[in-house]
């Protein structure tokens, strides 16, 4: 069972709102909480995912994917993406 303080800090943690001193408190409580604490944090991460997924997608530049894959294959840096967009 996680403490209300930990649960509160965990929600703030996933949205990145903890100040330094709070972060230390959070990490301490996280260690103390063990598996139960990790489970709660994972649950809270759905908050973060929900915020991201609520956004209307924006089509990336058409060449970004190709350049990404070229970069992966070559193992080197990719050139800057074109400014052509799908829409």
């Amino acid at each position, binding site marked *: 069972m996680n403490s209300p303080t930990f649960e509160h800090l965990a929600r703030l943690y996933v949205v990145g709102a903890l100040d330094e001193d709070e972060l230390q408190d959070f990490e301490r409580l996280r260690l103390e909480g063990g598996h139960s604490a990790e489970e709660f944090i994972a649950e809270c991460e759905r908050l973060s995912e929900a915020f991201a997924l609520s956004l209307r997608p924006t089509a990336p530049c058409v060449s970004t994917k190709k350049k*990404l894959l070229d970069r992966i294959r070559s193992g080197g840096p990719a050139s*800057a993406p074109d400014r052509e967009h799908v829409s």
Partner: protein
Amino acid sequence: MAQELAFLQAPPAGNRGAPIQLGGDNRIILCGGLPRFPPIMTAPMSDPTTEEYEISDEELMMRIQQGQEEALGMLYDRYSGVLKSLIMRVIHNDAESDDLLQEIFVELWNQSGTFSPKKGKPLGWIVTLTRRRAIDRLRKRQAYARVEEKFKERPEQQPEAWVQNTLEDDIELNDARRVLNKVLNELPDAQRQAIELAYFKGMSQREVAAHTGIPLGTIKTRLELGLKKISEALKGLKHELTDL
């Protein structure tokens, strides 16, 4: 309990506009505390095949860990649009967002070995990585003040994507996002703004207080209430949708 707002396989392309319902019996399939939504197809450069839909994020991550480039391409097709939107919300620069998106997928490729399904789901990992890198970029280019000014100049758009409810947007929003937006839009403006500043601007509670000129205690309360409310709403959503 599953730990993410996970996606199941979506219906074939021709059925992509269906309500939030998946599976042969047309019932919503739930994962943990949240409904499992069809993928938000974010990069319409290619039309995914049914087979591509059927591959889970976990399977894609496993293939990426094995060095399969095609898997990275599929993951990119699945999430690049929404990740670009997330980046855009942080750095407000289209060209730079594309650049950073590429960097993030390269990092995802290079760091895939550190991903463990035991610690969470791929989507959570990717969203966290993207948000952190976007905030890093925002700070690195030392344009924070300028972006902040821009943000201040457009208060009517806060939070931009959460409150755009024109008819056109409603049509464009798929069902998953519509449900999520409903939850977020039900928050009081003050709570939503505090969450926005933390999540999309990378501000701590003290920074939010300093930025808004509102007492720290008030900001803490707003964040606490807002986040708790969203958490509860997302949990409740499961039961609501199960009955459909």
